[in-house]
């Protein structure tokens, strides 16, 4: 008769840790769901109450969908107000645009956004909003055509311009009864998207190379390309804000944001199907920056055994707090704390510069300090990997139970 093997103390310990981790993973999921629900229920603006800001003198407002009409005392029509929404860096940007009865833009106000405040402020300080009032309703209003985009907040400025165009379209069609051709959404597939696809492909091939020397060379090539192109040239690394936007349901239009889908979708796809993280070790621009610094001094990975668990949970804790804040307040850009844009775009607050300086110095002493102790993306990818493992176990058990007599 075969007796079941007696589990060793080590195995007991491993099982106990695994069940603890799974309990915490379930609690994390519960907290994320609660934060999501809170953010969903707490959102929303009373748009009509803000009309007096864009049409001065309005005392009465009528609303139909995204169009509002503003009246002076005595029922004199002062103007129209259109509400427009477009996808920005962290989620939808909403603007109210006041238009005179003759079709001239009177004013605009951003009534909601999910961008990083430090960068979104640039739109105001660099006079981006001041370009709109006085324009006619049929002006192109496109950055690079008749508007100056804001360096360092390109996505946000494009989102505001796009939202204004949509608001003006609503005013033109439903308020001024002017017919408009449908808005064209050309598919934007440029250099960043092409480079990203190439990096994925190179990472996929490089990961399978049998010879370590070539694998190492190819990895360095993708790392440097990632740092130079996705980092310094386009400032488009993966951020926690993207993950929170994804969870919040702030999915941008695919025609304008193929890069967003390729980067986030690609990582989710590879992590869930292959159980591997293709981004961090192969082409993360900030990881490459740290690794370059570490190579200069020969910095090694440092993870004292007695601090191992504490370091792991510190990193996970930071990621969890960031996700919960971002979801509960529906502000992905504000919850993201990585100093990526500070390095690649040379913009940031004192704290962001401080963090970048600290990580830069630490990178000379320890291998990839931000990636190994602080980055919120590694725990997110680990969490997906853990979910994948759990699911595979369940499927295996289900198959075993079906095949056993």
């Amino acid at each position, binding site marked *: 008769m075969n007796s079941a093997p007696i589990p060793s103390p080590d195995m007991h310990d491993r099982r106990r840790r695994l069940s603890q981790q799974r309990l915490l993973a379930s609690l994390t999921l519960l907290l994320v769901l609660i934060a999501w629900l809170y953010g969903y229920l707490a959102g929303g603006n009373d748009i009509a109450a803000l009309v007096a800001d864009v049409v*001065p003198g309005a005392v009465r407002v009528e609303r139909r969908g995204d169009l509002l009409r503003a009246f002076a005392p005595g029922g004199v029509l002062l103007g129209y107000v259109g509400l427009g929404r477009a996808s920005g860096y962290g989620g939808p940007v909403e603007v109210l645009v006041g238009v005179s009865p003759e079709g001239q833009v009177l004013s605009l*106000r951003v009534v909601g956004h999910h961008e990083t405040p430090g960068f979104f402020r640039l739109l105001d300080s660099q006079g981006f909003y001041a370009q709109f009032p006085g324009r006619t309703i049929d002006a192109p209003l496109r950055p690079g055509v008749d508007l100056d985009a804001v360096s360092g907040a390109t996505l946000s400025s494009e989102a505001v311009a796009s939202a204004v165009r949509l608001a003006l379209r609503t005013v033109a069609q439903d308020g001024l009864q002017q017919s408009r051709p449908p808005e064209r959404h050309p598919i934007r597939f440029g250099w960043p998207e092409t480079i990203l696809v190439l990096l994925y492909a190179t990472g996929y091939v490089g990961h399978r190379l049998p010879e370590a020397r070539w694998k190492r060379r190819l990895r360095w090539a993708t790392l440097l390309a990632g740092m130079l192109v996705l980092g310094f040239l386009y400032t488009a690394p993966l951020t926690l804000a993207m993950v929170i936007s994804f969870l919040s349901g702030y999915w941008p239009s695919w025609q304008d944001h193929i890069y967003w889908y390729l980067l986030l979708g690609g990582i989710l796809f590879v992590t869930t199907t292959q159980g591997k993280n293709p981004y961090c070790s192969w082409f993360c621009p900030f990881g490459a920056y740290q690794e370059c610094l570490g190579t200069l001094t020969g910095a090694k990975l440092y993870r004292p055994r007695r601090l191992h668990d504490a370091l792991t949970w510190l990193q996970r804790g930071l990621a969890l*707090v960031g996700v919960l804040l971002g979801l509960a307040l529906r502000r992905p850009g504000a919850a993201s704390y990585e100093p990526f844009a500070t390095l690649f775009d040379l913009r940031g607050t004192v704290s962001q510069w401080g963090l970048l300086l600290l990580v830069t110095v630490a990178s000379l002493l320890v291998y990839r300090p931000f990636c190994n102790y602080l980055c919120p993306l590694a725990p997110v990818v680990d969490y997906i990997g853990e979910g994948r493992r759990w699911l595979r176990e369940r499927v295996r058990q289900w198959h075993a139970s079906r095949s056993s007599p």
Partner: protein
Amino acid sequence: MARQPFEPLNQGLLLAFLATSVGLIAHIWVESLTVPPTHGVVVARLSAPTPAGTVTPRPPTPAGLRPTTTPTATWEDLYEFER
């Protein structure tokens, strides 16, 4: 066993690095999240008023809006500023 760089001084340095970083991250969050998302965004406005005769002086900052009880047939919501 491979020699750990900077041991044992490194452990103190590492903890100092982590403590400072976490402090800075907390400060970044406070900076970002205490700015209201919509308020504080400057309204860009045409300096010249709308056509003569149609603009009345702007009322005092409205305390709020109340839906009227007589919505029109075509406009689904109707609001009036409390004056």
